[in-house]
């Protein structure tokens, strides 16, 4: 069987399980945790699409999340629009910020791009506090309306959004678009020589990444029913990057697993109260040392290999070919699929 069939099957099974979990266990707490995990999944997947593929790690993803959330907040409370308008509005605002930040910063290499985006997020957080008369300062905006009255239905909506976004980005990543982004990571000069308009692709991928981050931000706003400047915090960006790391860079689907794992871990650590953030950072360091290629995507790939080599169509191959096929999958640091 081909990779795509396995991936599709795996995805369908995974999302079916996720959708059914709160029905089986019927706990409001679980629904809440899973909703947050799904929203983080949207953020992580959108980050991976841009930064995982192009290698330009964006340390200011919380900027797009925050402006999406605040757009939703403003639209719903100050301007009195119905809650469903937030979603396209948040995406539009996030794309606007992506274009604004993207043009001057995308020419930078790795760490400089990361820090420039980080600066953007930090400054936005300060701006929210400076203009507290309009933005509500530390406490932000509250009294946002929920999108759906039932938490379970809202969870299914978010889960559907996560599935749609993941599917879209995985398809994009496996198409010519993804190939070009990976080529940009490899060597920009060669891409230019080949006649590729890298500026367009870099900015467009940042815009796509921002759009879905903003969408997640709006969903978060309608879940928490309030927004605060904490959304812009560095911690949010780092958490998302960690999730993608755990999931496996550039795999896109791994980010979903990473988001689930880490959200669950955060909940389990809740008993530690104030020590939580520190334990989290220590775990991050441990992951950086011991799991540099992540966990979810490599695990899925080896599972896929084992399943496909067990299937009848592959038994015809010589053992040597099957062996090298399996080894070749993990030889490079960053996988293609």
């Amino acid at each position, binding site marked *: 069987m081909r990779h795509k069939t396995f991936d599709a099957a795996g995805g369908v099974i995974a999302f079916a399980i996720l959708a059914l979990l709160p029905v089986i266990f019927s706990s409001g707490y679980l629904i809440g945790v899973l909703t947050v995990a799904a929203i983080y999944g949207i953020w992580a997947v959108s980050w991976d699409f841009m930064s995982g593929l192009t290698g330009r*790690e964006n*340390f200011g993803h919380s900027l797009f999340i925050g402006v999406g959330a605040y757009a939703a907040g403003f639209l719903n409370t100050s301007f009195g629009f119905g809650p469903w308008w937030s979603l396209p509005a948040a995406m539009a605002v996030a794309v606007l910020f992506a274009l604004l930040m993207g*043009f*001057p*910063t995308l*020419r*930078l*290499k*790795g*760490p*400089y791009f*990361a*820090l*420039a985006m*980080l*600066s*953007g997020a*930090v*400054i936005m957080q*300060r*701006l929210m506090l*400076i203009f507290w008369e309009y933005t509500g300062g530390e406490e932000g905006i509250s009294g946002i309306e929920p999108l759906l009255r039932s938490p379970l239905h809202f969870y299914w909506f978010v889960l559907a959004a996560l599935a749609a976004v993941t599917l879209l980005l995985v398809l994009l990543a496996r198409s010519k678009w993804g190939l070009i982004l990976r080529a940009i990571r490899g060597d920009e000069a060669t891409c230019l020589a080949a006649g590729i308009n890298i500026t367009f692709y870099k900015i467009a991928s940042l815009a796509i990444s921002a759009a879905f981050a903003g969408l997640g931000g709006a969903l978060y706003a309608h879940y928490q029913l309030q927004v605060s400047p904490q959304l812009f915090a*560095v*911690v949010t960006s*780092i958490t998302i*990057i*960690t999730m993608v*790391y755990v999931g496996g860079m550039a795999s896109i689907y791994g980010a979903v697993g990473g988001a689930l794992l880490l959200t669950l871990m955060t909940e389990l650590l809740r008993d530690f109260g*104030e*020590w939580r*953030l*520190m334990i989290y*950072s*220590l775990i*991050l*360091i441990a992951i*950086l*040392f011991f799991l*540099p290629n992540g966990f979810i995507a490599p695990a899925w790939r080896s599972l896929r290999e084992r399943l496909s080599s067990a299937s009848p169509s592959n038994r015809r191959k010589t053992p040597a070919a099957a062996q090298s096929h399996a080894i070749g999958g993990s030889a490079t640091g960053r996988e293609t699929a």
Partner: protein
Amino acid sequence: MSEIIIFGAVTGSIYAMLAVGFTLIFGVARILNLAHGSFYALGAYGTYALTSIGGLPLWQAALLSVIGVALFGVFVERFLIRPMRKSQLAVLMISLAVALIVEQMLFLVFGSEYRNVPAFIDDKFTIAGVDIAGQRLLTLAVSAISIGALYVFIQTTRLGSAILAISQDPEAAQYMGIPADRVFCLVMALSAALAALAGIMAGPFLSVNPSMHLLPIVKAFAIVVVGGLGSIPGSILAAFMLGYAETVVAYLVSTSWTEIVSVLATLLMLVLRPAGMFGKRAAF
């Protein structure tokens, strides 16, 4: 007007101490150290803890703080950053993780309220008709002396030449027998010590709370971009430019807008001249 000149100079001198350390460790070891702000914070908090809880006199507390932070910097470089050097993302992440851990530790031990770090000089002076606290003047002096000493050290001593060699070409320097790893340790120690010194000097009149590490990093990055990566004179010049720009904005508009100055300066410089003013290595 004379207020702007003097207060701008004080702000610029603090930024210069921060930026020179930041650009040094970058220029030599190619490490964009996001924990640099933590050195700044630890310097201030260390002095606070040693004086108020340890009961030590201020000078001793400050000296011990600087040495302690320098050692911490060496520890971070040796055991946390060096194993990750293959991947720039990993270095960034781990230095940021260190910054977060330090912030959390400070929060857990000291709480989130603002602390009062004692000043070295409590008297006020009047210069050119401007009332200025002695501590701010001392900051100006300490900054000038420490950066000057660093510059002389790098230009005249053999160790300084080793540092310059590594920053130009690490491999060739190693062929010449210069131990790159030990130079990295030394440079990290110097960088951390400068940042701690900035924290100790600025602590009495700037805010001291666990999240004080974040804005200095953003501003240090802005300064280094404007001044040119890896260039110490560039960083000093850009630090004073930023200090003066912020002071002017604070006087003419309001103090809340000062942080915007740094991000605007960064973005403008990136668009107009990405190599910075004196940058030998561009950021792209």
